[in-house]
């Protein structure tokens, strides 16, 4: 009996050691103010990894996930990053839902030499280029550029800005102010609100009373832009309102209600999957993602889960090309990603561009009848 036990124990030890696993770590803001980013990202990651494992894994190895929730706190994120490196000894890391947490973690992974793909917006994550750091979402210069393009087309060159004090709002505000002169856009008034404020009427009153304002840009994410939008209509301001892709989830329309009608924003194609022409190369990917996500979770799709979708498959394809989970090889292959069609657009990375998205991936969207409508 005892020998039998020992033999089976040895057998188990043997099988577990030969069955290697790919360890993927992820630190996301599943709770806290950015939970509407982290929550769909976590669901997307778990959903696709379960699929990949059911189909036999990557290069014959199953993926094991290590997911931590930083609650939107950059300090916590850094602690978890260290834990992923030192204790869990992961092969690659996806995540950092927001700019703040990503910026605090990227140094850890860059030093340890672990491929890291961030899901946060700010361009500062990949500029300057760091050897091991990549990202998938559109950046704030892209958002500003797309909005300014649209303003130019409509000949609305005198604008006001109202920005949140969150990492995204701040980064985008700075970028837009820097870029405005290149487009001939003048910022006549520049207002700020706290990320958790519940009333932006005073700031908007100042904008309303600034003569000559033809359009207003709101930089921010979370509930702030929804309140700005409501207050905006309550004050009866008629100038067109622009949001960033920080609001590209259905919850923004639900919260802002009728006030959201006519608001324009640049965003990835995920939220308008069914409105894309069949000829659009993104159509297949975004429709498949949208259907899968909505069926699995019962929630409307947002672009944020799509960033995780793209990050995961860029990584998985790099691992397949590298034919292993070897960190250095996988990193090199991620950098060689070419013609990858994700939910955010076509990705062509290079040693000098660790994002690889062009402006084409971005669509100008208007909110009509409580839904997204593609402006052609």
């Amino acid at each position, binding site marked *: 009996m005892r020998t039998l036990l020992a033999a089976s124990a040895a057998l188990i030890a043997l099988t577990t050691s030969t069955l290697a696993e790919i360890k993927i770590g992820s630190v996301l803001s599943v709770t806290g103010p950015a939970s509407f980013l982290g929550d769909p990202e976590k669901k997307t990651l778990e959903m696709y990894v379960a699929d990949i494992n059911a189909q036999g894994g990557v290069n014959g190895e199953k993926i094991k996930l290590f997911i931590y929730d930083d609650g939107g706190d950059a300090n916590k994120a850094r602690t978890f990053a260290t834990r992923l490196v030192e204790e869990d000894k992961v092969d690659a890391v996806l995540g950092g839902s927001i700019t703040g947490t990503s910026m605090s973690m990227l140094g850890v992974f860059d030093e340890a030499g672990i491929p890291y793909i961030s899901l946060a917006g700010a361009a500062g994550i990949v500029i300057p280029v760091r050897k091991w750091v990549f990202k998938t979402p559109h950046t704030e210069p892209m958002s500003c550029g797309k909005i300014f393009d649209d303003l130019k087309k409509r000949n609305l060159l005198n604008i006001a800005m109202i920005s949140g004090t969150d990492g995204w709002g701040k980064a985008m505000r700075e970028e837009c102010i820097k870029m405005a002169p290149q487009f001939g856009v003048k910022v006549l008034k520049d207002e700020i*609100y706290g990320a958790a404020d*519940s009333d932006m*009427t*005073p700031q908007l009153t100042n904008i309303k009373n600034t003569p000559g304002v033809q359009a207003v840009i709101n930089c921010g994410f979370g509930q702030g832009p929804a309140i700005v939008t409501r207050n905006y209509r309550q004050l009866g301001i008629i100038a067109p309102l622009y949001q960033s892709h920080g609001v590209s989830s259905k919850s923004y329309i*639900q919260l802002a209600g009728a006030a959201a009608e006519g608001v324009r924003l640049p965003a990835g194609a995920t939220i308008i999957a069914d409105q894309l022409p069949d000829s659009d190369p993104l159509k297949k990917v975004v429709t498949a993602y949208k259907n899968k996500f909505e069926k699995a979770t019962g929630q409307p799709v947002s672009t944020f889960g799509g960033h995780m979708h793209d990050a995961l498959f860029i990584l998985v394809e790099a691992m397949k090309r590298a034919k292993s989970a070897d960190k250095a090889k996988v990193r090199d292959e991620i950098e060689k990603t070419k013609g990858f069609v994700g939910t955010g657009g076509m990705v062509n990375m290079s040693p000098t561009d660790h994002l690889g998205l062009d402006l084409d991936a971005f669509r100008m969207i208007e909110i009509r009848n409580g839904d997204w409508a593609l402006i052609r």
Partner: protein
Amino acid sequence: MAEFLQFTFSGLTVGAIYALVALGFTLIYNASDVINFAQGEFVMLGGMVTVFAAAAGIPLPLAALLAIAVAVTVGMLLHRLAIEPARGATAVTLIIITIGASILLRGLAATFFDKNFHSLPPLIRSEPWMVGGAALLPQSVVVLIGTAVIVAALWSFLTRTMTGKAMLATASNRLAARLVGINTSAIVGLSFMVSAAIGAIGGILAAPITLTNYDVGTLLALKAFAAAMLGGMGNPLGAVAGGLLLGLLEAFGAGYLSSQYKDAIAFIVILFVLFVRPQGLFGKIGVERV
């Protein structure tokens, strides 16, 4: 002039919500010397339970009543399970217990409901009224009237009813109150329930304007604490005045000075009060005989 009016409307609306939370602080502080940092969570419960009950098909007025009932039950349980068993402990210990309760309630709400922001339809659905060039939301008027009604009801409860007078007696001297036969423990429990009800009503009235989520109580409690300090901790009228004043200060600060420092105003107020007038605007200077 129009912008002055606009800032005033904005400040009074936000201030009225601070006032209701500050009132809750005051009631519990009076009865038990505890500053209940879970007060903001009552506001959250009021809004969130109404949202989710209404989403489940319960008519809005019933959903609101249910939310108040839930908040009152939570207030009672908080007292019965956390405060009462530790009754011998110092005020600081009790305050720490309420902070723990606040974190627990937030966590429960995040798992039981969800982590998204929600809104409620306003009581009066209509376009904002234009008063002297400034937009006034009908819901703001509802919040202000609601606050006034609650303050009036609380006032008559405290001065006209036996239970209310027992509460005042407990507040002014617990030992003496016990000697004349008042069940002070029940009174403290009652103060938790009344505070919870006031908080929940505030949460329901405010949700159409400020939106609500599982996390909304934290900042609200902090601001309302500043308001209660400003008005004088333990003075119900001071709490209301402090709340309105803080709301106005924030609105005028954001409008006339810089919106960058809006959140700092509450903290500047706390520091100012502590340095210059620790008893607050309406509080009495505490004299302790040794």
